[in-house]
């Protein structure tokens, strides 16, 4: 499943990475504790979080995530956006809650296949 399909289906706002939407999403991970995300997420995951601190970019890059979705309309911090550009990490914003965002992405990945 490419990132573009998910962006379109959920109406996600693209804060960085309009040119990176052909990335393949193979799974998802939800978490706000970066230690936990580092320990348990996988390559290809679309990471859903409320955390907007610049360290999310390093974690997503380290774990080779397909991208990051910030929930409840939360915008990335300025230094987070700068880092995203440097590391080529797509940053998307969902107006939905974390629960709804994860639910919809889970449905898309499982119904249409990863």
């Amino acid at each position, binding site marked *: 499943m490419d990132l573009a399909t998910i962006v379109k289906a959920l109406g996600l706002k693209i804060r960085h990475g309009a040119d990176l939407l052909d990335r393949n999403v193979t799974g998802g991970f939800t978490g706000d504790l970066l230690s936990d995300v580092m320990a348990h997420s996988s390559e290809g995951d679309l990471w859903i979080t409320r*955390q907007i601190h610049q360290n999310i970019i390093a974690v997503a890059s380290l774990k080779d995530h397909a991208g990051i979705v910030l929930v409840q309309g939360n915008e990335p911090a300025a230094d987070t956006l700068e880092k995203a550009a440097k590391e080529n990490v797509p940053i998307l914003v969902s107006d939905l809650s974390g629960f709804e965002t994860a639910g919809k992405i889970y449905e898309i990945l499982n119904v249409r296949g990863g």
Partner: protein
Amino acid sequence: MLKVFRCDLHVHTCLSPCAELDMYPRKLVERCLAVGLDAVAICDHNASENIAWVRRCAEGTPLAVLAGMEIASREEVHLLALFDIVEELLPLQEWISRHLPGRNDERRFGCQAIVNDRDEVEGFCDRLLIGATELPLQAIVERIHDLGGLAVASHIDRESFSILSQLGFIVPGPPFDALELSPETGIRGGRIRYPELEQFSFITSSDAHHIRDIGRAWTDVRMHAVTVKELSMAFRKRQGRTIEE
């Protein structure tokens, strides 16, 4: 003359909602003296109203009282701000209070008592002290430094509300003056577990919420006197000042 001071730089009072009511100033000072502490920093969650009372209780005793606060950043990272006297901390307190949303609900979170040196309740703080501020960690560290204080990352080995649990690793940017380890880990345990943080000074503190917790951990600091300036020199290993590991 340089001397080793036994310092507990992270102790709560009954002002913190999660602390026991018997952590009132007079009893707290008595306990600090009984376990042989030379210095204590009072660090309530996002608040400072009991510091002056603790200081008054310690007048005429060998116990030095530093003015501190344990602040929760918007990333829910806890950090300590340390100052010599509460007056220096007030601009920080005002800023923190302005950016701390919510009202306390005693039944759910616990009572936040301001208690004077005669064991009388002066009042109750109604701010939601257990909550997190809306302020970014980096801005808080900068503000503490601007006001002449020290910034210490709280209990970095804990699985909740620590910089490592919330943010995965220590962020670049304005540096912490020291990192704190829980009593369970201690400074030595921290050195084994976090070799990558070798360049930081480590301290360990009781993070006492109950009177019996005071004395379960402290940091021995070699310095000239108990002041923030001397502590800062010890954290930087200047002119013989140092943290005894």
